[in-house]
């Protein structure tokens, strides 16, 4: 008995010596977390960021890292659920990450942000667009490489008023943080611009049938429909509207500006408007990133890939410029330094919103989203 204890403690001591020995040779890595929906039905929004972060980090590490220190990624799944996101955040905090790329969905981001704020971790989301995340001023650690919903809603409203000339509007949403936020802003701006909002309602996401609400739209006299939410419900709505012979303009948000929407809705998608991030397909860095993605992962990158790529580039740049991983220094560098990214030359304003990148209106034409100038 005694002997085995002695042997064990010798072994343990040896193990400690070995690990200490190892650590001395290699400088400590810079740990960056990547969080978002990597499983579940919104995984198609989250997985591209993982690939983006991997590609950026691979490039940086191949060139010798940041000031000689390698970057290490910690990838955690939050399934876009706020209750999972808090666990994800705690996990990343205990992994001692210095920055997080994520989260993807606004609800999950909000849930996680408080935890990062307490631990002083810079958080750069490629896709969380709820305005209050930056405008409340509550989260000085939060940045995003996407314009907030109010910018999107403002653009959508002006488009409805000026380009489509709509006077009477129906606004529907999916009762979620993202969709309802967008819908409420459109309603607010539309009423300020003198457009009459005759219908403002939430529908149950995932329901098989929306014919009742479609009847209600028909009865309300609206001449256009705004949808705040994601693509699964949007495709059912446009399908059931067109099946009833209602051919109203359908205007939606970034949650619908995804090729999956067109794939699922098929011919019914034709003519649908959606606001989405500006087209960056002419940006050489974006082209290279997409090509690298194709070479490494075998397919075209998905939603928010370029935003996540730029977010990672911005974080890497800020750490480099700051010369440390100190929270104050990094967040100051994010705000003051301009960096050339896949989205163009960007920086962040005092609240954490991106400068140099915004939204455009798109329309489905011949099975593809085309940017309307």
């Amino acid at each position, binding site marked *: 008995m005694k002997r085995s204890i002695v042997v064990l403690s010798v072994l343990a001591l040896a193990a400690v010596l070995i690990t200490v020995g190892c650590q001395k040779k290699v400088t400590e890595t810079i740990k960056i977390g990547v969080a978002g929906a990597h499983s*579940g039905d919104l995984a198609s929004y989250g997985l591209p960021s993982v690939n983006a972060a991997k590609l950026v980090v691979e490039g940086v590490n191949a060139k010798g890292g940041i000031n000689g220190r390698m970057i290490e990624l910690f990838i955690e799944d939050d399934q876009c659920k706020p209750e999972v996101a808090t666990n994800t955040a705690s996990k990343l905090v205990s992994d001692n990450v210095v920055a997080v790329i994520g989260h993807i969905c606004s609800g999950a981001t909000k849930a996680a942000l408080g935890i990062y704020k307490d631990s002083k971790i810079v958080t750069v989301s490629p896709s969380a667009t709820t305005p209050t995340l930056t405008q409340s001023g509550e989260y000085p650690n939060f940045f995003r490489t996407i314009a907030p919903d109010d910018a999107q809603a403002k653009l959508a409203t002006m488009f409805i008023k000026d380009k489509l000339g709509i006077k009477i509007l129906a606004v529907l949403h999916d009762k979620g943080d993202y969709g309802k936020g967008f819908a409420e802003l459109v309603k607010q701006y539309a009423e300020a611009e003198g457009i009459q909002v005759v219908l403002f*309602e*939430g529908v149950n996401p995932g*329901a098989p*049938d929306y014919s009742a609400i479609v*009847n209600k739209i028909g009865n309300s006299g609206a001449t256009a429909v705004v949808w705040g939410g994601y*693509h699964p419900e949007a495709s059912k709505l446009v*399908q059931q509207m067109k099946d*009833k012979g209602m051919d109203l303009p359908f205007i939606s948000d970034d949650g619908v500006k995804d090729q999956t929407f067109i*794939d699922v809705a098929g011919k019914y998608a034709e003519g649908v408007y959606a606001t989405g991030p500006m087209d960056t397909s002419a940006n050489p860095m974006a082209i290279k990133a997409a090509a690298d993605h194709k070479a490494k992962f075998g397919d075209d990158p998905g939603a928010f890939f370029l935003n996540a790529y730029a977010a990672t580039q911005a974080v890497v740049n800020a750490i480099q410029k700051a010369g440390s991983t100190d929270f104050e220094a990094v967040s100051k560098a994010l705000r003051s330094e301009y960096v050339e990214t896949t989205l163009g030359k960007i920086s962040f304003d005092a609240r954490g919103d991106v400068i140099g990148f915004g939204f455009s209106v798109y329309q489905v034409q011949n099975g593809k989203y085309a940017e309307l100038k």
Partner: protein
Amino acid sequence: MDYFIKLLLSGTAKGSIYALIALGYTMVYGIVKLINFAHGEVYMIGGFTALIVGGFLSTLGMSIPVVLLFSILASIIYSSAFGFTIERLAYRPLRNKSRLSALISAIGISMILQNFIMLAQTEKYLPFPSYLPDLPFLQPVREYINSTQFIILITTSFIMIILTIIIKFTRIGKAMRATSQDKQMAQLVGVNINQVISVTFVIGSSLAAIGGVLICSYMGQINYYIGFVAGIKAFVAAVLGGIGSIPGAVLGSFILGWTESLGTGFISSDYEDAYAFIILILILILKPDGILGKNQKQKV
């Protein structure tokens, strides 16, 4: 008035969608006294099977009616096999244990199947091709009811009649009723209850498969999660009408569909689920066994 009729018809269409799934729920409950939470998943698997088989046959260049027929057949066979296997593996070993064990087992199976499909197929939403014909005589009234809704309504009514006939007038139906009343006595008079219960599950799963094909055609999309949402609503409908009763499930589904549709139309769709559950609570207070449920006296 026109608006009211439109809403009533969309409620009817919605109700027939719920009824297609609720029929299988209620049938299994009626015979085995088990709330088969995996029923929604079998419905989803039925839809996926039709999607895969239909896609394959379409690439072979077959005509749409042939594709529809074979994909429905394939999904019935595949879903029945699932239903049969689920009963054998997850419910039969627990048949003489407390009812709660089988219920938990059912919830577990439901999760396993959802995740299985998510991993084996995809987590994305897929387009579901519309195999159902566009009936020309409904074209003028498509504002009120379209052909897919009409086909679902007809199929639901037809299935309800067939099921009632099977249970009331056939030999296996008699055995089912006997098993439902008293398993032990049924066994004593020579009913093979294992076989009867397997047949019940096979029929229930076939109904789910037909529902899967029709409802996915209507929605135009499929995803591994659709069974959960539909299953919950169908369950409410079945309880509303009196769980275990075949006409009750259909009646409950229609009441649910009408309530949701009229509530959406005249009040707000924000509280769509609330209307459904208010009706459920009212009915359960006034008539605890559901509208058409049998009042079973509990022996103390």
